[in-house]
């Protein structure tokens, strides 16, 4: 919504600078999004008359002139030759600046000496003023130019003005008008709002409105008020300059005097108006047309002013005569009855339409107009007649003609004014201020609200005018008081500390702990998109979940909610690899989504991605080129899980490859599946330009957080007794897993065994094909006494025997 400074000043007095006005409007809730200065060209340039012209004592080509500027006389040194005493010329006064040429700073005129003679200003050529004329010398003005008149005025350039682009919040339709803004200024300044005086000619003899038009409301629920006036004998033509400029400054194109008036009044008071060519209405009985406000028929076709044919449904409201539709109510007029050069008689519509209906129609037809914008936010049902009379007055002024007596105003049920009680104590309680009842009442009255004081100390009753449809209950009035009192004047009170509570609070800390551990392990945190393509690799869900699609995606790149964090991590890897960031150690914590039996599901997960070099770049050592392998990721998971409080997580290999993993395993803790780990299948890796092997894992974080973990660590005394270590190196079949060895250990349960550590896995020299060599260190310790070899031997030998029988192990050198 745009308004101008000069326009506002027609309705309310204020002496703020343009900047202060912007600040004031912003601070009462009308945000100024843009300020544009108009006109103000040729500032400091006036019409002047050369009184005398003498030769410069020190320069042949210069002259010294005495010049009248309207206020007095000045001495000017001038180099031009094309003028004489008596000529009227533009004079720029000291302190003013010549218009800047593009790319150069403006040139400011100063009092100075030219060849020892003082010059108090400069007479200008058209080129110097940036005017199109090409003259060798001064611009000679017409002899009847008024000396002292600003040049801009002489040239007929518009005076200076300031255009404000305002953001009007949707709850305040009354502010979509210049008067509405002026009313706010009036409330802030206390200066009265001055609405234009509307006086219409008394009986004109042009007949009565009732004899020329009837109005029938067939859908009063969508149009509770419709008024029609008739002006006869107008002459359609261009608008006068003031009208044209008023519209153009706020970005409305001038069309013709009558149409411009309807737009002007809409901008002025906020009430959309429409003018029909009266003779294009189809008259039936007795030559009097009837305006019918009705719903459209299903599939009814109608051509709007913009020349487009629209197909309508009964949800849309039409203005019609008895033969045809003539306007899409509240949105746009029809081509068949629009004002044209031949229009002589005008029917002026001023009506109120249901906001929801107008919004629905405008949205359905994708047709937004200044009228629909105002109607859909809520127009002022009480202002229809005033707006109609105001427009009639201006049409008579700008297009001539005669006003037909009276108005046909179909308004079966005028609503009563809403009454709201404001408790003064509540104002202070909610705002944290101490305002007196008098102050509250004064604020409300300044806004144009009618306050009927009922109990001076405790409360007052406020009658809400029809233009303030946003005021519905007490809190709305409290807000008005707050705005006018000034938010800056509400003292800030120090935060009051107290204990808040929410079950998630502890979860937030646990998540922070997860991040602390993982960043400590050298992983970088990522945050990926929630919305991904259903074609991404890894868009798989765990039964009974299925993928959850959007009903209205922006594109096929983002048409489902991520069912897993892995597709996002793969996309991240691809993005990085394409930018030569080849070494990645990443984790993400985020939610994944799915549906089960028509119900949306959410789950918090933790995912990992490793690829590229295992270690930070270094300049020496044989390991420096080593790439990550699956045990790097497994080690990270083991360390994370243990630090986070979980022991005994088993990794269970999946027999087959999956769509995402070449090889993978699930993580089991008791009966719970915590997640999975695996190596990305080369098919996906290749498709994503991933060259080094990529390792992925994903854990169900909600599940992890729900499982029991020891909340506090308990201290175990450090061992006081020495330990005995026994190493075992053995050949076992390839299929024998480390877990199988551990199971054998658990089965043997050797006395005093403290720990089992695998320290070598070897294939090659001296190891037959199909076998591998495993080397373990077994540490034995007793808590209270020093173990002897004899103590250990029995238990250890039993263990080794079990390896032989259960695992087909063959002991290698130095065993047992």
């Amino acid at each position, binding site marked *: 919504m745009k308004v101008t400074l000069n326009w506002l000043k027609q309705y309310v007095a204020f002496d703020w600078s343009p900047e202060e006005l912007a600040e004031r409007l912003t*601070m009462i*809730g009308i*945000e100024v999004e843009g300020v544009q200065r108009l006109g103000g060209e040729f500032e400091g340039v006036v019409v002047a008359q050369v009184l005398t012209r003498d030769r410069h004592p020190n320069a042949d080509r210069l002259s010294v002139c005495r010049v009248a500027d309207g206020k007095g006389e000045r001495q000017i040194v001038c180099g031009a030759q094309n003028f004489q005493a008596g000529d009227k010329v533009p004079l720029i006064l000291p302190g003013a600046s010549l218009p800047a040429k593009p790319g150069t700073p403006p040139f400011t005129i100063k009092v100075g000496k030219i060849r020892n003679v003082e010059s108090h200003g400069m007479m200008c050529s058209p080129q110097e003023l940036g005017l199109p004329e090409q003259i060798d010398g001064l611009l000679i003005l017409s002899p009847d130019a008024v000396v002292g008149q600003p040049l801009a005025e002489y040239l007929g350039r518009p005076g200076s003005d300031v255009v404000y682009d305002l953001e009007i*919040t*949707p709850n305040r339709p009354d502010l979509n008008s210049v008067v509405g803004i002026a009313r706010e200024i009036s409330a802030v300044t206390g200066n009265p709002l001055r609405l234009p005086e509307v006086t219409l000619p008394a009986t004109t003899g042009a007949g009565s409105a009732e004899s020329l038009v009837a109005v029938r409301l067939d859908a009063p629920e969508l149009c509770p008020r419709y008024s029609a006036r008739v002006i006869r004998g107008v002459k359609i033509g261009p608008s006068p300059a003031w009208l044209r400029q008023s519209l153009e400054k706020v970005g409305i194109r001038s069309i013709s005097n009558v149409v411009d008036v309807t737009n002007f009044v809409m901008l002025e008071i906020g009430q959309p108006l429409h003018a029909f060519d009266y003779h294009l209405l189809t008259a039936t009985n007795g030559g009097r047309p009837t305006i019918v406000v009705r719903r459209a028929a299903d599939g009814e076709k109608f051509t709007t002013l913009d020349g487009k044919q629209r197909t309508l449904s009964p949800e849309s409201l039409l203005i019609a005569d008895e033969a045809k539709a003539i306007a899409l109510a509240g949105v746009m007029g029809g081509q068949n009855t629009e004002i044209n050069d031949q229009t002589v008689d005008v029917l002026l519509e001023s009506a109120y339409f249901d906001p929801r209906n107008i919004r*629905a129609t405008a*949205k359905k037809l994708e047709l937004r107009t200044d009228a629909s914008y105002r109607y859909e936010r809520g127009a002022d049902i009480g202002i229809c007649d005033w707006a109609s009379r105001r427009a009639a007055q201006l049409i008579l002024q700008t297009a001539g003609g005669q006003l037909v007596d009276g108005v046909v105003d179909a308004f079966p049920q005028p609503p009563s004014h809403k009454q709201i009680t404001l408790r003064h104590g509540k104002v202070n*309680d*909610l*705002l*944290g*201020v101490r305002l007196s009842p008098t102050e509250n009442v004064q604020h409300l009255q300044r806004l144009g609200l009618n306050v009927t004081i009922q109990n001076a100390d405790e409360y007052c009753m406020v009658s809400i005018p029809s233009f303030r449809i946003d005021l519905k209950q007490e*809190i709305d009035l*409290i*807000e008005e008081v*707050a705005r006018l009192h000034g*938010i*800056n004047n509400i*003292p*800030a*009170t*120090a*935060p009051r*500390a*107290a204990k*808040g509570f*929410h079950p998630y*609070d502890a979860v*937030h800390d646990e998540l*922070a702990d997860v991040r602390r551990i993982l*960043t400590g392990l*050298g992983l*970088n*945190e*990522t*945050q*990926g998109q*929630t*919305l991904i393509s259903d074609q991404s690799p890894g868009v798989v869900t765990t039964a009974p979940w299925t993928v*959850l699609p*959007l*009903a*209205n*995606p922006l594109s096929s790149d983002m048409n489902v*909610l991520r069912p897993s964090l892995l597709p996002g991590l793969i996309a*991240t890897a691809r*993005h*990085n690899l394409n930018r030569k*960031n080849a070494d990645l*150690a*990443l984790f993400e914590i985020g939610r994944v*989504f799915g*549906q*089960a*039996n*028509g119900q*949306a599901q*959410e789950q918090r997960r933790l995912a990992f991605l490793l690829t590229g070099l295992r270690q*930070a770049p270094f*300049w020496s050592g044989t390991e420096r080129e080593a790439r990550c392998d699956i045990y790097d990721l497994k080690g990270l998971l083991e360390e994370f899980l243990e630090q986070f409080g979980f022991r005994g997580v088993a990794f269970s290999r999946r027999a087959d490859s999956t769509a995402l993993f070449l090889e993978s395993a699930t993580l089991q803790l008791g009966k719970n599946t915590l997640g999975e780990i695996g190596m990305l299948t080369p098919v996906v890796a290749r498709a994503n330009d991933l060259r080094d092997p990529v390792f992925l894992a994903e854990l169900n974080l909600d599940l992890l957080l729900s499982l029991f973990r020891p909340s506090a660590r308990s201290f175990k005394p450090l061992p006081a007794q020495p330990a005995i270590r026994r190493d075992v190196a053995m050949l076992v079949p390839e299929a024998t897993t480390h877990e199988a060895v551990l199971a054998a250990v658990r089965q043997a349960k050797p006395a005093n065994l403290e720990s089992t550590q695998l320290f070598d896995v070897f294939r090659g020299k001296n190891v037959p094909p199909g076998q591998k060599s495993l080397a373990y260190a077994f540490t034995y310790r007793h808590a209270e006494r020093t173990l002897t070899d004899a103590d250990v031997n029995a238990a250890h030998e039993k263990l080794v025997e079990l390896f032989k029988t259960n695992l087909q192990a063959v002991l290698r050198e130095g065993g047992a």
Partner: protein
Amino acid sequence: MSFFEQIEPLKLAALAEFAAAPDFAALEQAKGAHLGPQGRFTALLKQLGTLPKEEKPAAGKLVNLAKVELEAALTARRTELELKAALPKDPTDFTLPGRRRPLGKLHPLTRVTEDIVRIFRKLGFAVADGPEIEDEYHCFDALNTPADHPARDSQDTFYLNLDRAVPGAAGAPPPQTGRMLLRTHTSSVQIRVMQGQPPPIRIIVPGRVYRRDNADATHNPTFQQIEGLYVDKHVTVGDLKGTVEFVFKELLGADVKLRFRPHYFSYTEPSFEIDFSSPMVRKMGKEWLELAGCGMVHPKVFANVGYDPEIWTGWAFGFGIERIAMLRYEINDIRLFYENDTRFLRQF
């Protein structure tokens, strides 16, 4: 030379030899030459017995002092030679890059969220969360958003295509209120929390929200907000201002100025937008920059969750986390947050 006169020269000769010994072998040889069984100093010691009785104590004291000194010098020289032997052949180049163990970095949005959470927790706020998939009731109706408000439009809000539920089947959905959607603001959690627990309430809610905007430098369909809600008896606009000022001064620096402009949100009244001003904002060529929206919880919202608006009042406010992060780190493209380029991530 008398016995006494011999002590000092012998000692000095031994000390000089010890000091001059270039390695352990030479040092051991020198030790043998002086302090060994056939050594010269040992020979002197042996003469001690030949002295007259009255000279013995003084001579013995002197000789012993010299011997202690020699042994100390020997030990010192040994340590010196040991260190010399331990030194690498070439001196270590301390300018060579070290073998790094890089610490992982938190995502910048996590960092900013954590900073905000920390500040609120100083005031006793608890962190809360809620589902990102919401129904229309919690996202709009309960927040007093009119039924035909444009925010509900499928142009602006993502709706979900859920399968039709099998009635009576396990896990059948509870009766929903309205269409299912991706929440457009964290304010929906206000409703869930107030429905779930009695006042007073003091929570903050960080989380992802969704708007149907094409991605560009300032938009991403997913972004993050943080919401604060405080409900108690006698809560005023003054409290809102005081808390907001505390939080943003902690977050953005004590030199920021804040201002509150009246605004409109359906779920608060009065409603305000908060602008801030700082040297950084002025460097951007502006006086004020919009920061957050806030207001007093609307009585209708309280009524919707069953709180009596005559007893309880409260405030809520919310703002975008990306916006704060972009201001703080001078990041000019929101998409960087979701691309996770490691050269970006490693900077925070």
